[in-house]
């Protein structure tokens, strides 16, 4: 009996971090989902992704008043606004569509810088308050520990999103077109589909996803001067770690990041500042080496 109790006690402090790692990882996945589509699948390097998320976040802060109706409204407005921004971005990107990642980076980084400061100019430099519906505001008991209810809800949202994304990319004609356009846009055009339309569609969808993530994630990664950068960096890390375009890989990477940021920090507090980037460099380098070897053997 006592042995069991000691056992649970040793695990107990890590229970909540582990659970939170899942929730946090899923939040990161939701935030990154737009970029998975845009960069991972369609190979458009969109450094304004964080900006699209921030648009959703600020919409949430402006519209949410603690009621469910406001949540629905914010979601609708945030998704629309961010999708519109995505289409705008696609229009801006047209001249460099055939160019390299680097010129896309130049353009989208510029948009992110300018758009970010416009957002802050519009909404003020202070972090705005985000009021979620009262039912979600509180905390619930999980295995004898108090845990934020809102984060639990996220687990469901992210699971739905991951499944939907997988189906769209792998199973629909639209998803195939997007992947084909990455390989050879000219040949896609010769099939009678405009690559520019595909690009606009991808960026609109990515924007919608980012907007939704921004609204839903606002209580956790809230809108503020740094939000865009934080979200962009995390998303890029997750998308690249996940193997560029693989939905399962991205989800796994997001969960790993979540656990590293929570359980890892709880277990190895001294290494906390190094954990994320060291793990990322190690995984990517190991995988690159693995690919190089496999490339040679098979």
């Amino acid at each position: 009996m006592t042995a069991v109790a000691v056992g649970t006690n040793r695990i107990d402090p890590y229970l909540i971090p582990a659970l939170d790692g899942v929730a946090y990882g899923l939040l990161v996945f939701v935030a990154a989902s737009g970029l998975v589509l845009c960069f991972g699948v369609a190979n458009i390097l969109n450094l304004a992704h964080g900006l699209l998320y921030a648009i959703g976040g600020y919409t949430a802060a402006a519209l949410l008043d603690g009621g469910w109706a406001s949540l629905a409204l914010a979601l609708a407005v945030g998704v629309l606004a961010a999708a519109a921004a995505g289409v705008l971005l696609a229009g801006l990107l047209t001249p460099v569509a055939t160019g390299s990642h680097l010129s896309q980076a130049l353009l989208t980084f510029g948009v992110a810088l300018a758009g970010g400061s416009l957002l802050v100019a519009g909404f003020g430099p202070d972090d705005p308050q985000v009021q979620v519906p009262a039912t979600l505001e509180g905390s619930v008991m999980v295995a004898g520990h108090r845990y934020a209810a809102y984060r639990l809800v996220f687990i469901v949202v992210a699971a739905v999103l991951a499944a939907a994304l997988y189906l769209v990319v792998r199973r629909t004609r639209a998803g195939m077109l997007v992947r084909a356009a990455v390989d050879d846009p000219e040949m896609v055009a010769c099939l009678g589909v405009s690559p520019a339309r595909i690009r606009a569609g991808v960026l609109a969808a990515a924007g919608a996803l980012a907007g939704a993530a921004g609204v839903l994630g606002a209580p956790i990664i809230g809108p503020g001067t740094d939000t865009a950068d934080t979200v962009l960096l995390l998303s890029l890390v997750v998308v690249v770690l996940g193997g560029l375009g693989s939905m399962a890989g991205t989800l796994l990477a997001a969960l790993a990041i979540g656990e590293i940021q929570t359980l890892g920090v709880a277990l190895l507090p001294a290494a906390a500042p190094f954990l994320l980037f060291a793990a990322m460099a190690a995984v990517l380098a190991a995988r690159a080496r693995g690919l190089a070897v496999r490339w040679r053997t098979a």
Partner: protein
Amino acid sequence: MSGEVIRRARGAVAALVLVGLVVAPWVVDDYTTALLARTLALALVGVSVALLTGVAGMPTLGQTAPYAAGAYACAVVGSRVSDVGVVQLVVAAGAGALLAALIVPLVVHARGVIVLMITLAIGELVVVVLGRWRSVTGGTDGLAGVPAVRPFWGLPALASDQGRYLYALVVVATLVGAVLVLLRTRAGLVLRAGRDDETRLRASGHRVAVHLSGAHIAAGAIAGAAGSVLVVAQQYISPADFGFDTSALLLLGVVIGGTASVGGALVGAALVIAVRDWLFGVLPGHAPLVLGALFVATVYLLPTGVNRARSRLSEAAAPQPDPPAAQERATVGEVGG
């Protein structure tokens, strides 16, 4: 023929710019001179970024790592060992090369965006280490009070903005010249070939990993040397000098300049950094907005900037096939299998 004209014109422009840079400190005020000196350091890092990104095809966000290694090595040597510029420069370049050599195993097999992310991670890790290794680096607030540098044994210490600027100019011009020479050798040719098609390069018998490692270490040494120029120009360094935004701006500057062109990288990186620093002074609060708008505008004003610069470079560097008369003199030695 037109290639010849373009080359002449480029040479003339380069010479003009160089002359302008030499006389600049007597024409402009101290602030601009100081700004220029700092910009030169960053432009030199830009060259090392271009070497990797454009020439070797390995886009990097982590050149701030060897840059920081060089800067801190120089600062430590400068305040504890020697105030001679040449010594500091060599130590800094060595530190940069050493760090780059340590990083090589991580990146040499990776390509494209993966390199970008690995180098980003390394850059961030280096910043964390700089912030926490307080006994050497002074922590997040940085290191101040590095004594003024004397360029060479027996020369006086550089106390004025002009002196520091000219020192930076000499160092940067020398190193850029060295890079240009390097790129004209077969090493440069093989690097460019690897950027195009690595499989083909391997099938021709080149050790791709060796070439890439060499490029990384050379770029690391250049970035390290740039670090020592920064210390001289600014007399103060902190981890903030080597953060992500520096890497990002450098990469963007290099893209603006045309990734494969050293001169372009120099100009692009210098422009981006100088414009940023200048904007923060003259347009308080709106610098990011204007900078962002400038980036967007650049893409449209130089729609093919990258490619145009690249094709121009390859045109200029194309070897003329030997005339038939030279065929008899073809010397081809035997190679052991």
